[in-house]
């Protein structure tokens, strides 16, 4: 009865239009951001490594098993063209980002909406059984198609000789196809699990497992890589061999997953799932029973995600030291030009640049954590604590202290990652002490940022968004200030520029103590406002 099958999809076009309108900003950010980033990197790589020798020197450093495990293998290490270099460095990481985008959106539109009771409302409004997953899948088909096209056209349009349109389209198609595959996988998991959180965990665990599995396989027996769907991204070998087979494989697997998801969806009840459901706790654990325990619990997921992110960022940056080292060593002419021992200086300069970036990055989870104090107030959650015997001072200082701890932990993880890969990839690596001192010297600046946040929460809670702008300003000025030729006055506005550049400059306690002191004063001033203002 084709008619009844069609009825299962009733209302899907309307739902799709609604979803697209609802998501347009988010989608624009994801697709635009990813594409601009890719195009920017391709452009930059072309400029940074214009000659074949330079590229070859870089390729040399990417043969090590550690690098293969992290960024993936390449068939073109002996003829490392700009296109080959771009695809090798970017494909796997971009595919990961695209997969995460697909998982997040898909989960939100399937199990997430179901959990919030929206699906029940839609079904009551005579919308077909399969319209909800159907609309979500169609949306992801459009999104991944658009992503593929934007990447293909954008990368092709740069006009780099080794990056023609045909290969760029393959590069984009590989990203889109892998993305669609993970959207379909998330749709399937949404049928199995009964919660959005469970769906997310399963989907991300699958992605993580693929990444780790392929890292092990690629370093030992690369031919087995064909069995790992995530590897289909770089197995296309865009700009080198231009294989379309992996794209077809990914699309084929997506179709299978979609059919399975739709079938499971059609035979289950709204709200139900196929995995056994763990009953929630009837009683709280002791560890939850305090404002601190509650804060930890509410921010746990965010903290773990950021912890992993900081560690990975550290690892990736650390691996670049090896490239730099080899680049210098392989480049006899360059070595002769520079005064003896200046290779070390270059490394130190690079390290001090990285530490600023890490410090700005580490401020993000710290501020996110601090601003929970405000967002919880806006959502009316603080009344629950307030109307009981929790004082304003307790809540305020708890959040400031918690944010500081989050920031310090983020910096520690980044330092550990940085130390790990640079130690294994450099001939004369930095010592643990130097790496940790260089990164951790930014703790006072981090505290300053938290202090400004605390001041805003206390006095101008509706303006906390400004601090994000300031952080973005710091990032741009400190990372690229020299390139942009900014006047000194503007550069001095960022707190990070007042931290002595260890190890390029000598270690100094004084500025660090001053910044810390100012941070403490800011927190105290913030509390003075928080203590006397009305709660929403």
């Amino acid at each position, binding site marked *: 009865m084709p008619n009844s099958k069609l009825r299962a999809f009733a209302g899907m076009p309307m739902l799709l239009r609604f979803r697209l309108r609802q998501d347009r900003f988010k989608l624009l950010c994801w697709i635009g951001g990813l594409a601009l980033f890719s195009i920017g990197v391709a452009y930059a790589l072309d400029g940074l490594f214009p000659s074949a020798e330079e590229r070859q020197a870089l390729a040399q450093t990417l043969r090590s098993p550690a690098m293969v495990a992290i960024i993936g293998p390449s068939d073109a290490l002996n003829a490392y063209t700009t296109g080959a270099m771009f695809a090798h460095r970017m494909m796997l990481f971009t595919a990961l980002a695209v997969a995460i985008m697909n998982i997040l959106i898909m989960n939100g539109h399937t199990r997430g909406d179901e*959990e*919030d*009771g929206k699906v029940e409302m839609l079904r009551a409004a005579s919308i077909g059984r399969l319209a909800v997953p159907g609309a979500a899948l169609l949306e992801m088909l459009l999104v991944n198609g658009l992503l593929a096209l934007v990447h293909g056209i954008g990368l092709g349009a740069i006009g780099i000789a080794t990056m023609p349109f045909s290969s760029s389209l393959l590069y984009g198609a590989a990203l889109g196809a892998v993305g669609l595959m993970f959207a379909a996988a998330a749709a399937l998991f949404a049928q199995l699990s009964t*919660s959005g*959180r469970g769906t997310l965990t399963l989907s991300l665990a699958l992605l993580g497992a693929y990444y780790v599995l392929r890292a092990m396989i690629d370093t030992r027996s690369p031919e087995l890589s064909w069995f790992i769907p995530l590897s289909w991204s770089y197995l296309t070998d865009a700009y080198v061999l231009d294989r379309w087979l992996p794209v077809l494989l990914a699309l084929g697997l997506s179709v299978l997953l979609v059919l399975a998801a739709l079938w499971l969806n059609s035979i289950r009840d709204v709200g139900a799932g196929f995995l056994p459901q763990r*009953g*929630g*706790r*009837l*009683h*709280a654990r002791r560890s*939850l*029973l*305090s*404002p601190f325990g*509650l804060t930890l*619990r*509410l921010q746990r997921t965010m903290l773990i995600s950021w912890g992993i992110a900081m560690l990975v960022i550290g690892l990736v940056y650390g691996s670049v030291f090896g490239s730099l080292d080899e680049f210098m060593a392989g480049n006899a002419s360059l070595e002769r030009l520079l005064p003896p021992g200046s290779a070390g200086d270059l490394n130190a300069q690079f390290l001090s640049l990285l530490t600023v970036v890490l410090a700005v990055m580490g401020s993000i989870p710290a501020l996110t954590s601090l601003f929970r104090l405000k967002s919880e107030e806006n*959502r*009316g*959650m603080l*009344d*629950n*604590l*307030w*109307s*009981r*015997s*929790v*004082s304003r001072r307790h809540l305020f200082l708890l959040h400031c202290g918690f944010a500081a701890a989050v920031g310090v932990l983020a910096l520690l993880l980044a330092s550990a990652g940085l130390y790990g890969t640079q130690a294994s990839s450099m001939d004369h690596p930095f010592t643990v002490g130097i790496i940790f001192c260089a990164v951790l010297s930014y703790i006072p600046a981090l505290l300053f940022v938290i202090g400004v946040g605390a001041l805003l929460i206390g006095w101008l809670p509706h303006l906390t968004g400004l601090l994000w702008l300031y952080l973005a300003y710091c990032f741009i000025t400190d990372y690229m200030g020299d390139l942009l030729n900014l006047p000194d006055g503007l550069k001095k506005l960022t707190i990070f520029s007042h931290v002595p550049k260890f190890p390029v400059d000598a270690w100094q306690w004084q500025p660090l103590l001053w910044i810390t002191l100012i941070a403490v004063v800011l927190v105290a001033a913030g509390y003075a406002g928080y203590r*006397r*203002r*009305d*709660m929403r």
Partner: protein
Amino acid sequence: MGAILTVRDLSKQFGHFSALKKVNLEVEPGEVVGFIGPNGAGKSTTIRILLGMLQATSGDARIFGRDVWSDAVEIHKRLAYVPGDVNLWPNLTGGEIIDLFMRLQGSGDRAQRDRLIARFELDPGKKSRTYSKGNRQKIALVSAFATDAELFILDEPTSGLDPLMERVFQECVEEVKAQGKSVLLSSHILSEVERLCDRVAIIREGEIIESGTLNELRHLTRILLRSETVSPPEQLETFPGVHDLERSGSRAVFQVDSDQLGAVMNYLAGLGILKLESTPPTLEDLFMRRYEQSGAKRSETER
């Protein structure tokens, strides 16, 4: 021992808007006080000042003899609050939240907690994101009544409960009252307050317009009567306190002031009652009456 809660000339400005104008309120030990008024009257604002969440623009508010702003934490150890809009962390289960609330309040009885969960027919194993408004309210009610607070401040606590659960709620209030505890119960439904409260204070547009026992306020209320009698009630319009009379033959629909009800009933009984329906006064009636009075007073003074 003096009053548990005293509010003197409390005012609150939000910018140029006066949300409260010289509000006075008192709760004695062992007393249940109804705090009623239409939406936007200032009930929640008053209560949030009492909880130290908002700072009063002027006036004095004390609970247990302490200042509500500066001694908030000490006061809250002996007080339980249930808001009208209960916001809960979506990823915690009801059971976890109740335990957390009881611990943060500082007192509480596990056995009482479990009994209340059963009475309110709550499933504490579910994530709070799945709870309806009524269920979220039950979480707050269970957490409040499981503590041994001396004062309960309840801000429209039953707005999401079904009638059966409202009944359970009323029993809970009666129980804490029997233990000599005090309750401030805000509501915009007169009948709910009527059953439970010893006294009521009526607030409108930030001003307390009446306060006293319900009996003292009876003179303000009218009851709507529909009657059918054997002989037509021809003299009905001559009775003082009868208003808006519509009569057709032996049937009549009219309003009567509560304090004149006895006389009117005697008269109708003499005519032989066939049918009699009465509708209790609503808050709206109360306000209507109040409008008329203040309108009349104003026109008198103008004259």
